[in-house]
């Protein structure tokens, strides 16, 4: 881990209100995200974040760290659900830098160590930003 190149990281917490807002924005009103009573009867036990709300937090941090960059491609995996009220840790590691292209690994981890999101993306950064 000591060799990891970590350009940015962020701890954050999502609320049920955030789930509700993303449901309105995305049109995805699946009860597993927005209905606490329904969700209590599922194997999850409570509502879970939309995967793409987690991706939104990732995308926001990328935009803040590399303003004006372009996202060329993104892969995402959602191994475990993310719950409201948990402190989630987002870590961005640089895998590769070639010219104006950066390849980054993104990971969101729950307090119990389970991974909620893991992904890889490629950004094109403006010339003056490229290292």
């Amino acid at each position: 881990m000591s060799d990891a190149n970590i350009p940015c990281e962020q701890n954050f917490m999502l609320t049920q209100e955030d789930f509700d807002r993303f449901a309105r924005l995305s049109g995805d009103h699946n009860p597993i995200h927005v209905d606490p009573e329904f969700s209590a009867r599922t194997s999850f036990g409570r509502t879970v974040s939309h995967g793409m709300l987690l991706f939104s937090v990732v995308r926001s941090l990328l935009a803040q760290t590399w303003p004006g960059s372009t996202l060329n491609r993104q892969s995402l995996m959602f191994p475990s659900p993310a719950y409201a009220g948990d402190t989630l840790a987002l870590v961005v590691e640089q895998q590769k830098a070639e010219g104006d292209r950066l390849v980054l690994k993104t990971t969101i981890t729950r307090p119990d160590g389970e991974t909620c999101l893991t992904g890889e993306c490629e950004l094109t950064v403006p010339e003056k930003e490229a290292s």
Partner: protein
Amino acid sequence: MNLDRFDALKEGQSAKLNRTFTAEDVREWCELCQLDQDWPGVPEPLIAGLFSCLLGEDLPGHGTNYLKQAMTFHTAADTSEALQASVTISRLRRDKALVNLTTVCTGRDGRLICDGEALVLFQH
């Protein structure tokens, strides 16, 4: 494992939705993820959200467990641009209750905004 609903799925089956994002939607998204920037066009997670909406609500539908999504972004979608997102079943693996789908989003005049692949688990 109940596979009645899985067995109703067919390779080649697809679902579509139309959506136009407004500048207000984009402001709302920026506020939601605490981003203090003007965003040119439609943020990629809102495009991705169209696929997740189709997968969770339509094909395969409720009970879908979203495992993976890969996307290539070809050009940024504009606000006020009429978008069409579609998901199409490309492979069914009954022994593991897995469904692979291709995911595509196009804009005005059919221009390609994003394409990619999704993998979901569909069992009950």
